[in-house]
């Protein structure tokens, strides 16, 4: 339920504070699913890295409420996003048991959460060109993948490298938003 609310919230929210709050809640959901498979000492890494991601993204934002660089792509309406997210929800609910069976994962709930996050991530990537939104979309997609991958792979080094990628993506997003004059003064 936490994952569902967070992913829907991320789809519908426009202000960066709300978006990053939902992203943080989403990482809490990821932690919940991963800790059912991995030792809690390893699973907590997902939560901590997720929170670092949210903090680093938050520090890059200006004081204004919405993300810098206005969204120029369509559609922007909340109703459209809600309907699209609803479709993802229904689709993932329908295919989760079969997918779980197909992949040999004995946890339909975890598979559903994973597919939902991946679907929501793809949806976000499909309807935005705004750098920070794209980064959040990619992080959502990777969060979904990480739940699924946690079921099959428990290597600490793979986990560490995934954390590195999770931390690298917001840095890329922040770099893309750095004003040119600031970059030249380096």
């Amino acid at each position, binding site marked *: 339920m936490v994952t569902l609310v967070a992913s829907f919230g991320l789809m519908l929210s426009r202000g960066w504070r709300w978006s990053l709050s939902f992203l943080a809640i989403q990482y809490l959901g990821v932690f919940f699913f991963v800790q059912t498979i991995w030792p809690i000492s390893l699973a907590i890494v997902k939560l901590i890295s997720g929170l670092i991601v949210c903090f680093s993204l938050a520090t890059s934002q200006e004081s204004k409420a919405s993300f810098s660089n206005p969204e120029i792509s369509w559609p922007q309406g909340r109703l459209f996003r809600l309907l699209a997210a609803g479709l993802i929800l229904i689709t993932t609910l329908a295919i989760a048991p079969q997918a779980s069976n197909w992949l040999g994962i004995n946890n339909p709930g975890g598979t559903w959460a994973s597919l939902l996050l991946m679907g929501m991530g793809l949806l976000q*990537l499909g309807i935005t060109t705004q750098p920070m939104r*794209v980064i959040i*979309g990619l992080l959502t997609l*990777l969060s979904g993948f990480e739940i699924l991958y946690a079921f*099959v792979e428990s290597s600490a080094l793979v986990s560490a490298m995934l954390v590195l990628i999770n931390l690298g993506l917001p840095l890329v997003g922040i770099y893309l938003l750095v004003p040119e004059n600031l970059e030249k003064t380096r």
Partner: protein
Amino acid sequence: MSAPLIWIFIPTVFAVMIWIIPNERLVAWLGIGISLILALAAWLLPIETPLNLGNWSIKITTTLTILGRHLNLSSTDQPLLIFFYSSLCFWYICSRIAGASHKHIPYGLLIITLLISALAVEPFLYAALLIEIAVMVSIPLLKSAKHPPGRGLMRYLTFQTMAMPFILFSGWLLTGVTAGSGELSLISQAAIFLGLGFVFLLAIFPFNTWMPLLATETHPMALAFILWILPTVGFLFGLYFLDNFTWIREANNLSVILRASGLLMIVTGGIWAAFQKNLQRMMAYAIIMETGYSLIALSIKGTIGVDIFFGLLIPRTFALFLWALALSIILDKNSSAQFATVKGMGRIYPFAASIIILSHFSMAGLPLLAGFPIHQALWEQLGILSINGAILYLVATIGLLMGGIRTLAVLVTITNEDGFSIKENWLQRFSLSLGILLLIIMGIFPQWAAPLLSQLPSMFNHLGK
């Protein structure tokens, strides 16, 4: 001392050190020097054979172990290291002549070391993670200093990132297949995930839309580097799978799928190139076609397909970097690369215009140019396999040639009666003239690259033999 230490870790440390240095000229020369030394070292230093220097004896080992994982670079990888580092050196020289930002140097070195480590790492599933890190490092290289990040850059990041989960998941499934527990369904799952991963990684149609978009958003030298190194490493990574998994190599439909994908890419690329009105996008479509040619080459069974695949690498590298250099020189004084803007530029930048045309025609496989011998061999082999495929190949090539002829017409159009007024500096004139000679000499004497090309396939145990 180990080979990964020399060709992966030392360059990585250098990349970080160079990044801190503010002097542009020093950074450029350091980059050129380091890449040249690494290429020479790969050529001269033996791996796993003691090297006697007076009373000293040094032996370079193949493996470096980090946190229980291995990085392996053996003597069979040395031709590849020579190719990568000498190409990097050539790119640095072109970037310097083009007046590209000095930040290209450390990022280029870092990206190439990350991608070499992706090819060297065991177990192989870490390669997908290393490639993703290289993609993230490439963003500062690709971000334009003039414009905010555009759709092409975001799409590039998205599609390349999406490759990673598929390859990681297929890695897990392949472990099951290798362990012998896999039945037919497991093999098909692994094949689907692996296929999707490589479709994203290699920017195979329809996931190549970022290429022409990115071409207009970034510096031509940066674009050329990324569109050279990522597909090259992606293909080598793919060849690793073909080499190590017999069931993939001997799959009935693999050849047909590779050929169909390749033909689709060259035909769509060729048609778009024929009607293109932007020089930067034109280059991107030529590179899309190059990926298609490589796919077609790999669809040819036996060693000949692999030989053609490797044979395509050197002419492509030269043509692409020279094309990007010439484009950078023209774009330095022009706001865009639209045909309307660059009309008559051949009279102001005759050397750069000549290189653009010759590189374009070389990539189309025009006789007497660098790309001709290998394109001719590829077309011949394709004709043996499928006559319809050969006809489509011809259509695609005509499309790319039409794009080249249109570019030529635009560049030499007389816009006023002033005649020639050359604005390239002497260094540019000299280097571009050398480039013209290089493209022609490589077309007439392709055997000069044979010593390197013949050794490249030896890095694979089954494919190269």
